[in-house]
């Protein structure tokens, strides 16, 4: 509940920011830089005099977009791979997919993300790709594991008796029954994606200015933390609360969806 509420707050803030933000963040107001929270600026201003509340709202957009697309990449590629591997267990295809997964897992993900963005240039897009790549094996493994047990179910056998092929069964029978798992894992990867984006942006390899990003706000505020702690506090809290919200929501969803899944399929 709390999780869903927190998530909604930030998703809502991101959405509202398309229509309205308290201040235009593309306008710098150097004269008003580094002001603590006040009536005019509830969360204060940053080193360029921008309104931190507005920055956080627009930054939520970046964080959510990056994490969402990265999860999308991971699901979009990982789910079919996992389904294929499960459909053809023990085959060469399965072996190749699983070894490939192991390989990606063997790389320290953040390190490689740093390499990727270092090689291809720092940008939100490359951050998405780097985070997305490491989502692929997560989903592939999850789906394969779940699908393997589903493949032993009698209803799959019944579908085969009805003359359906592996691809069709994967889509009609396996996929719908792993969606719950995907939703739960998706929320978790989503929150990890937000953390990863923040980390990459913090070291300067994520979203580039003028696109606001929570991670970069933290990086910018770092040298000012001793005299303007509000600049570091609020973006950090935004990350913390969003990730916390997503994790709580993931747990909640698991509790909500899992027993039904178990009851449905015994």
């Amino acid at each position: 509940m709390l999780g869903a509420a927190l998530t909604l707050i930030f998703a809502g803030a991101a959405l509202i920011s398309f229509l309205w933000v308290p201040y235009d963040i593309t306008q710098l107001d150097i004269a008003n830089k580094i002001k603590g929270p006040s009536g005019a600026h509830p969360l204060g201003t940053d080193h360029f005099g921008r309104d931190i509340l507005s920055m956080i709202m627009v930054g939520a957009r970046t964080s959510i977009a990056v994490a969402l697309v990265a999860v999308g990449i991971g699901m979009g590629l990982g789910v079919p791979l996992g389904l294929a591997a499960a459909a053809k267990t023990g085959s060469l295809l399965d072996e190749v997919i699983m070894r490939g997964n192991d390989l990606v897992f063997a790389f320290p993900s953040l390190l490689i993300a740093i390499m990727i963005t270092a090689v291809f240039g720092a940008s939100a897009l490359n951050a998405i790709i780097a985070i997305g790549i490491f989502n692929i094996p997560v989903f592939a493994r999850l789906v394969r594991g779940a699908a393997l047990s589903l493949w032993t179910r009698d209803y799959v056998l019944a579908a085969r008796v009805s003359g359906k092929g592996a691809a069709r069964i994967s889509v009609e029978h396996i996929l719908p029954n792993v969606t719950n798992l995907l939703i739960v894992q998706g929320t978790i990867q989503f929150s990890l994606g937000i953390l990863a984006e923040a980390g990459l942006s913090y070291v300067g390899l994520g979203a580039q200015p003028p696109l606001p990003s929570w991670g970069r706000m933290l990086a910018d505020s770092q040298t000012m933390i001793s005299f303007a702690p509000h600049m570091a506090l609020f973006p950090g809290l935004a990350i913390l609360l969003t990730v916390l919200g997503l994790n709580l929501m993931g747990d909640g969803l698991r509790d909500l969806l899992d027993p039904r899944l178990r009851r449905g399929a015994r």
Partner: protein
Amino acid sequence: KTDIVVAMQLEPPHLDPTSAAAGAIDSVLYSNVFEGLTRFGPDGSVNPGLAKSWDISDDGLTYTFHLNEGVTFHDGTAMDAEDVKFSLDRARAEDSANAQKALFSAIADVEVVDPATVKVMLSEPNGNFLFNMAWGDAVIVAPESIENIKQMPVGTGAFKFTNWVQGDNITLEKNGDYWGTPAKLDEVTFKFISDPTAAFAAVMAEDVDVFTGFPAPENLPQFEADPRFQVIVGNTEGETILSINNKMPPLDNVKVRKAIAHAIDRQAIIDGAMFGLGTPIGTHFAPHNPDYVDLTGNSAYDPEMSKALLAEAGFPDGFKTTLKLPPPSYARRGGEIIAAQLRAVGIETEITNLEWAQWLEQVFRGKDYGLTIVSHTEPFDIGIYARPDYYFQYDNKAFQDLIAELNKTTDPAMRTDMLHKAQTIISEDYVNGYLFQLATATVAKAGVTGLWKDAPTQATDLTAVYWAE
């Protein structure tokens, strides 16, 4: 107390000042470990170094240097004219890896007269020659120790190199056999702290005694307010400019460049990026130089005029270009501010943050950029505008002739005149957006005395530093 910990942002890649551009090498070793024939004083003046005096022939083509006697390298070998010849010949050789080879291009020959006298023949007169010899790239090294110089630098200075923990620190100790005024400190540790936050924390926590080139101007007020510390703000030779690719349309249009210049609010940049540190400039010349002309009026902040100029140039709705930024915070922060200011007059910029290596590759060598921000820290470098292949790609015959003339001229008054002219030409051609002269801030513990205020060259000369009671 006779030891000191001096922190700086960048670590030298290796310890041979004569084969790399990295200013960090000079920051540690210049004057402390290595010395040249001449040397820079704290005010930027050229003073005698290993050469106690010199004679210049009337045609300006022959320099005869008289060396100090009894000078030894740290490994005990004597420093004599042979070493000078070796050093200069090495720097100008075909396969030389000297990053500032141009400094030596005027030299035609070097001749050893006797162990204490060396004669340098030039191919044409050069008003800057003594100045050139003061650079860190022109220090005197010994053939005996050249092999391992990158790891084990052996010089003639008041300090001896002792140890290097890569990634962390370099230590020097007092040279007991120094030929000149001995150093007051017994031991010096240079610590490398690249991260501005860490820099702040390290000073605050008193992990270091001095931080030269303190990277976060926003923290200076706190140090100033704290009686434990002193803050020394000085000039550098760094003209911080918004470099413009003069060959890339529409930036090849002088009206467009002028529009850019008028769109920029220098003071906002100095306040926003440097927290007030820095002197506005209107041309590529250091304001503390006596030959400086204040031309900031040529590019006063005037967005309306800027818009008008853009419309005149055929871009009433503005245009789009790239803004590539190297790592220092003046560039990164300044870039964001400039982007916002340019956006206000209709010019959209796509910001790309680059590491130095990428910047050198893409911008400096590849000339693949529209705008960039960089500080040109070489002293007295207006001559770069005479190089059409330089990354601004500014090609003005009149200016090139002027500089060629200047190089040959030794008469001070005429030089001043020509320099004024040169500054005006580039300012009125709006070659680049001239922002501010980079300031340098040194934060030190209250008792530290004898530090340089300004930075006429990249050096941390500790030979006169001591702890006051």
